[in-house]
């Protein structure tokens, strides 16, 4: 890709993580790392444990075994709120926006963690909270400009087509100025053009803001085009890990995706 990007040291390391719900083993002894500034994809067939993996990373699930090391610091018990404070933002497979609120307000909620003024101050619209709100609004406007959603700024999210809702969700995640951005199937259910747009935006986010991105995706073509490295999961186990070309030609991956006769 571009020359301006620089891939740095390990930002996030997943070490021998196992996760089970009762007798169902969602993840078994999975290890991989994510380097600063890269686009890292997690792929795999349905039920392979991809979303569970993301949920482990941002602290929704707590693995029974293994550890997640973020910025060199091991953590066992992290809740999503703490993860967000540490600069991890995410989008969801089935869009989780406030349908009745405008695009602008939805994105503003992404700034919530950055707001310092208390509830009372905000309610009274005192000087500090007003200044703060204006500064946040400016940040949000930069994101709106960046993702080219000016025309729907005031539109309630529920009225938007699916592809645009996905983009708004990305905008909200960006509003938190994340260090690490987790995208859960950002292109699911999109048409070809919407997918191309989304690819462009993901690459732009990575390049402009230097955001490290971990994404889950079904569409192999998309993944191969934009990822630096790819982890492949099947039945909760890691079956391959490497550059797109290596993964593409891996016999285990081909079997997992195309099926194999036993």
């Amino acid at each position, binding site marked *: *890709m*571009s*020359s*301006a*990007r620089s891939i740095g040291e390990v930002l996030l390391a997943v070490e021998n993580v196992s996760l089970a719900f009762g007798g169902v083993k969602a993840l078994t002894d999975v290890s991989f790392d994510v380097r600063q500034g890269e686009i890292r994809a997690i792929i795999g067939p349905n039920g392979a444990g991809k979303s569970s993996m993301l949920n482990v990373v941002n602290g929704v699930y707590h693995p029974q075994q293994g550890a997640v090391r973020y910025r060199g610091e091991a953590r066992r018990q992290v809740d999503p709120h703490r993860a967000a404070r540490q600069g991890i933002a995410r989008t969801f497979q089935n869009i989780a926006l406030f349908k009745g609120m405008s695009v602008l307000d939805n994105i503003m909620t992404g700034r919530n963690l950055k707001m310092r003024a208390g509830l009372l101050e905000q309610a009274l619209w005192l000087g500090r909270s007003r200044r703060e709100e204006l500064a946040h*609004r*400016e940040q949000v*406007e*930069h994101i*709106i*400009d*960046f993702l*080219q959603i*000016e*025309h729907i*700024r*005031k539109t309630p999210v529920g009225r938007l087509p699916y592809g645009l809702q996905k983009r708004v969700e990305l905008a909200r995640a960006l509003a938190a100025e994340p260090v690490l951005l987790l995208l859960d199937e950002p292109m699911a259910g999109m048409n070809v053009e919407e997918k191309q747009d989304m690819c462009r935006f993901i690459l*732009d986010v990575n*390049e*402009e803001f230097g955001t490290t991105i971990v994404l889950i995706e079904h569409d192999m073509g998309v993944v191969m085009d934009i990822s630096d490295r790819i982890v492949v999961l099947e039945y909760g186990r890691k079956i391959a890990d490497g550059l797109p070309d290596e993964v593409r030609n891996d016999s285990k991956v081909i079997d997992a995706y195309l099926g194999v006769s036993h």
Partner: protein
Amino acid sequence: MHADAATDPADTFPRLLLQHASSRGDGIAMREKDLGIWQSWTWRAVADEVRDLACGLSALGFRRGQNLAIIGDNRPQLYWAMAAAQSLGGVPVPLYQDAVADEMAYILDDADVRFAVVEDQEQVDKLLEIKDRLPGLEVIVYDDPRGMRSYGQGFLHELARVQDLGRELHGDHPGLFQREIDQGAAGDVAIMLYTSGTTGKPKGVCHTHGAMIAAARGGCTFDRLGPGDEILSYLPMAWVGDNLFSYAQALVGGFTINCPESGDTVMTDMREIGPTYYFAPPRVFENLLTQVMIRMEDAGRIKRWLFHRFLGVARRCGADILDRKPGVPAADRLLYAIGDLLVFGPLRNVLGMSRIRVAYTAGAAIGPDLFRFYRSIGLNLKQFYGSTETCAYVCLQPDGEIKYDTVGLPAPGVEVRIGENGEVLVKSAAMLAGYYKRPDATAELFDAAGWFRTGDAGFFDQDGHLKIIDRAKDLGRLANGAVFAPNYIENKLKFFQHVKEAVAFGHDRAQVCAFINIDLGAVGNWAERRGLAYAGYTDLAGKDEVYALIQECVEQVNAQLAADPMVADSQIHRFLVLHKELDPDDDELTRTRKVRRGFIADKYALLVDALYAGRSSCHIETEVKFEDGRRGRIAADVKIRDARVFPIRHEQAA
């Protein structure tokens, strides 16, 4: 108009800019919505920005006589680039921003472009794609740095950095910018606009400062445009109209241009700005009306009743009140005033048209109902006529003298004459200097006496208004020698929602006859509401009820034609509804959906003969191509009907 034309020393656009900057430097020249907020530039600020950009371009090697390509949406920075090029004695060449790289390559090559100023990464990518084929292209300046970080090429420059460079140069050589402007003359080429190239390769139309300023001054005087007026600049910069409205007139009249946030936000931005001067092609007005009607369908019963009740009042007297015509009953005036308060005012507000003093439409024929609707709700919508070669203006409709089917009076300083073949001929100060590098094509534009041949056929009505009826080459004569303008008749038919296409015949014949294509959507809907069952287009087209419907349309057209002595002989005596839809795949229409009259006359010679032989039906079989490439045949007995014709009256129906 403020400045007196006779004593006005500003005869080039850069001088006009400096004049505004010194006489009213704090007035707002430009606005652009950025990050959700309208950002403004005063005339003084614009002059400084232009100076920095001009000096920067000069530092990069842009020289007098060179052409500067400009590609992008309407952005203040791109308008500055236009002025900067002109300041240095260069010629801006705006290109359509949605053109694909290959189309751009031809123009960039033809115009010998060495410098290009473009909006963003998208346009840069297009230029990089074709750069190998354009050895002359040396420098690309881009405005929006987004996504450009990884582009390392030395010939790429960010506009703000170029301005930094210019600021330095200006610091070292403070007189440079002024000296360059002083060298300019009114007779220099100010702008080059490429024709669309529907007939052959695109040609560069060169306009001098003098010509564009004459056109702009004429328009500003005609509609009293000046400081305080606001325009939304949203049409492509490569189009002559945008250059006239958003650049030439803004600089001559000194009014404010407003650049929308993006192409998708034009409607919202328009509401926020509330322009006083507005242009839109007919299809924009049509889309707006459709949106309004759809929303009204969803409104509550009281609102719906109010809307239709007062729209009826507006239809009756709105246009007359707008034109300040006497003779509107006091009761109607009162009702209209109430309607204005409850319906028309709010509606104009929703459309962002509350403050519009002058609105224009041009470029295609506008339906009379559509035109009347906007006038009746109090929008001063007018039409003009012109072309790229005539700096957009030839004729304009004056306030209070609006007819939907004329294009108005010759613009100030424009002479119009009708040639012997019915062609509209023009002499004007606002006339192209020539096509770029194409003296042969330029020579063909003018007749022996130096009149510009528009290629359009028309005539003047009794009030001196020009009426355009057809392309001159399509014009025919009836057997009795009367003018036959097929396009004019076909357009009148097509204004009816039930008529999709029409083909008129009459050249060298005693009478005019017509083929009609019904609009399957509109007529199908009409049939469903009447419980009329039909199997498909051919079946529906042959129904007697449909014939009766179309007959009404034809006879209304005849009534309109009868009112105009020039075309009264062209009333449609007989017509038929074609058994199949005319289709570009069958070569009956061009790709831009213009009927290929000659081809159709040959293909359906049987039907044409039947029309003129007075028969009441005709059996025909036609081969058709389906979308998947298969061929099939459609056979039908096509009915032929007579339409009522009207005695020739000598008054205006409009």
